[in-house]
């Protein structure tokens, strides 16, 4: 069934290609020639895993690299003291006490410094709320209706946001850029590599699943107080109503995609995104603070048969840590933000540690352009608070909160988040132990190529906006 479906897709694509003659007969498209009406163009079709804005990211060419004489947090095991790592063709080839490399490899002597996987921030608004801020740049919340599943964050991403290179200098190599939390359903997120590009497509992580931003709690009901939702109960009702529509849409399109009987159903961008969630192709990233509301969002997910990948902010995640473990929902959390809203009043600094101790995946996230540059510091704060609360934790646990666990949250744990053979060569060389307040990233590799080198100021990534406006480290606005 699947191959016939694909053949039909190929046939349709060829049929609508520019310059294709109307009378062109396409091999294997017997079903189409039987139609009386012309087949729908590709834009009218709602297809699982469609990719109308494909990533154009191309890894930079790079020689093989050996980083040796370094302490390596692999994200997957105990710290390797005085070890080495070999990168080639964009991948980690070997990591251990020693590695054997070919003569053409670039050799970096780490001098006893530390290495981690590239850090991953599951919650940013880089590019959609860029710097400098203002109405012309406020593109993160389509706050015109409480359900805007049709919008995609990447279409608001401004690649010239100066926050991107600053994140890279903080050791962050992959970010999830989310719509804001004004809406119950805010739209698709964008999974981006933190690299220079003239287009958002040039930053998109190839093959990454999209996320769907959802939100509960105070924000939607405050933004839509006049027209609804005005209460938490309406938050839930409107959310469920959206999924009911999505269910119907999915059934119709799954049937048509299987049989192509008659005219296709009407394509709807919002319902298309929601149907993809129901099919498991898009991962739900749910902003939610209070424990009781998280429990309700879990019930909604069960009602409609989707899984919540991660609760974001989850200030009260510690109160339902066991549930997060059994439901396999990660907590994308802060180390110490709280108190600024009623729903954040019960923030405790041991939140991440308690979630971790219950067996759930804890993630240190930022939701902030400054915090995103210091994920390692956030992890260190959470580690200290957890130990103070009597929870046994290792340094490796803290590193997992900013590498392996966020990689899983984005559905990319087969490619990033740890330094193991076969994984992408996203690597950070730190000036010291990354859990120290004094430590900074010295070098950052993405797919095996150097994208940041603190000692090489001439090659420093400065976005177009920065030219002439933002002084460089020598105080010049070159």
């Amino acid at each position, binding site marked *: 069934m699947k191959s016939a479906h694909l053949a039909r897709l190929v046939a349709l694509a060829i049929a609508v290609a520019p310059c294709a003659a109307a009378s062109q007969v396409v091999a294997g498209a017997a079903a189409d020639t039987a139609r009386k009406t012309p087949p729908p163009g590709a834009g009218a079709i709602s297809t699982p895993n469609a990719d109308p804005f494909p990533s154009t990211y191309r890894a930079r060419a790079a020689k093989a690299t050996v980083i040796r004489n370094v302490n390596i947090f692999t994200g997957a095991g105990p710290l390797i003291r005085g070890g080495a790592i070999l990168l080639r063709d964009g991948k980690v080839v070997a990591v251990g006490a020693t590695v054997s490399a070919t003569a053409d490899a670039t050799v970096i002597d780490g001098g006893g410094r530390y290495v981690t996987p590239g850090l991953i921030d599951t919650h940013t608004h880089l590019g959609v709320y860029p*710097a400098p801020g203002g109405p012309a740049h406020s593109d993160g919340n389509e706050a015109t209706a409480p359900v805007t599943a049709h919008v995609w964050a990447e279409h608001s991403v401004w690649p010239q946001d100066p926050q991107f290179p600053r994140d890279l200098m903080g050791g962050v190599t992959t970010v999830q850029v989310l719509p804001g939390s004004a809406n119950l359903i805010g739209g698709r997120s964008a999974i981006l590599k933190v690299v220079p590009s003239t287009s958002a497509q040039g930053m998109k992580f190839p093959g990454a699943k999209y996320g769907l931003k959802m939100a509960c709690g105070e924000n939607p009901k405050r933004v839509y107080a006049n027209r609804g939702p005005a209460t938490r109960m309406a938050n839930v009702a409107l959310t469920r109503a959206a999924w009911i529509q999505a269910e119907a849409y999915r059934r119709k399109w799954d049937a048509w995609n299987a049989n192509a009987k008659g005219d296709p159903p009407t394509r709807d961008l919002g319902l298309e995104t929601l149907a993809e969630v129901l099919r498991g192709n898009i991962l739900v990233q749910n902003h939610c603070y209070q424990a009781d509301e998280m429990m309700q969002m879990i019930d909604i997910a069960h009602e409609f048969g989707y899984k919540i990948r991660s609760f974001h902010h989850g200030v009260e995640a510690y109160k339902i840590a066991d549930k997060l473990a059994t439901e396999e929902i990660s907590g994308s959390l802060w180390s110490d933000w709280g*108190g600024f809203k009623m729903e954040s009043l019960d923030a405790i600094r*041991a939140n991440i540690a308690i979630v971790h101790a219950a067996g759930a995946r804890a993630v240190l996230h930022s939701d902030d352009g400054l915090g995103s540059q210091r994920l390692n510091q956030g992890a260190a704060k959470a580690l200290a608070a957890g130990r103070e609360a009597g*929870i046994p934790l290792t340094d490796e646990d803290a590193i997992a909160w900013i590498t392996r666990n966020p990689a899983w949250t984005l559905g990319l744990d087969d490619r990033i988040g740890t330094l193991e053979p076969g994984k992408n060569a996203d690597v950070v060389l730190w000036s010291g132990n990354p859990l120290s307040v004094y430590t900074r990233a010295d070098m950052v590799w993405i797919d095996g190529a150097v994208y940041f080198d603190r000692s090489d100021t001439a090659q420093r990534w400065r976005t177009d906006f920065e030219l002439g406006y933002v002084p460089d480290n020598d105080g010049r606005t070159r």
Partner: protein
Amino acid sequence: MRARMQTAALAALLALPAAAQSQVIAITGGTVHPVSGAMIERGTVLIRDEKIADVGANIAIPAGARVIDASGKIVTPGLVNANTQLGLSEGGGPQFSGGYNDTRAKGTRGVAAAFRAWEGFNPASTFITPARQGGVTTVMIAPSGGMIGGQSALLNLGGDRLEDMLVRRTNGGPAVAMSASFSAGAADAASRGELLGRLREVLFDARAYGANRAAFERNATRSFAAPRADLEALQAVVDTSLPLVVEVDRAADIRAVLDLKRRDKLPLRLILLGAAEGWQVAADIAAAKVPVMVGAMSNIPGSFDVLGARQENAALLRAAGIPVVLISNGSDDAQNFNVQNIRYEAGNAVAYGLPWDEALRAITLAPAEAFGVADQIGSLRPGRDANIVIWDGDPFEFATKAETVLIRGVVQTGASRQDELTRRYAPMKGRP
């Protein structure tokens, strides 16, 4: 016999701190950073009642003193977070405070000089204990907003009565600064030029009012640019007994503010707050002998006023000889709900070039000096309040804990609301 015992028992129950006997505490064996002088290895800090009595390497400890062994630990003055709204806003904001926003006054066209920010302070705020547990013994309670936003005060975080917490200037009141802001919207002004004009007018009128009070009371002066109470409060600014803390970021704007003194010859004691682009005009700031209150976390050109935001700012300004008070400009909310995070600000300042001793000074003695209370707080010297912290490591590091915190000679204890929530939910051996 019974009556006497009852009386004695009663007396014991009523035993008050101000008893005839002095309370002497000796902190011994630690690496002591007085800040006002060189570090002392295996030093002793001697405390008598509320004050530091002596600090040194070989100090005789009186008999009967309570000894706190600080061997292997680091001993510093209590930290000062010089820019907070601690105790002015509990979670949830005005909707949960009877409609009050205690951080700011309505004022009159941007002027609220008579507003005393500390009068809305709530000693029962649940965010005070975490600040104290994190080694912060003194905070500045400052208004937010307003061209002239109101008066600030320093509070020691021990005790539960505002009057006992205020750090009063010797020969002065509780106010230690007047807040001002250059930001748009602060003054009901459409432009910087209009704001500067209004600021000059208000300050000159304050002087005119002060010289003609009697006539004013007889209704025999022209009308002034601000209400009487505000003009009265501004007397301390125009006679330079109170510094004017001006929140300003852009390099050109900093120069404009400095010009109030230099070109307009307004008698002012200025302090710059924020000063994101201060490093670009460090020479001018140094020449004007104006201290700065800056952070070490912000490097994002978030507006056209802070295009030059850099984490090296504090280090560059200090290197130019400018007194630097370190405040928070990061996003970990060291202004409201995470006041204790000021020590990580210091760590980041060091990572970006500020020497370690200078960073410690920037959150202890520098604010005390800038606000005229160095005779009371900010260093480990005889006669100062016994605000002292014993740390189990480098105070700027995340892994370090403030093991013992003294405020005015009293060891601080007590769990925070956060502690109670943590206890309720943290996994414990044997608990299901």
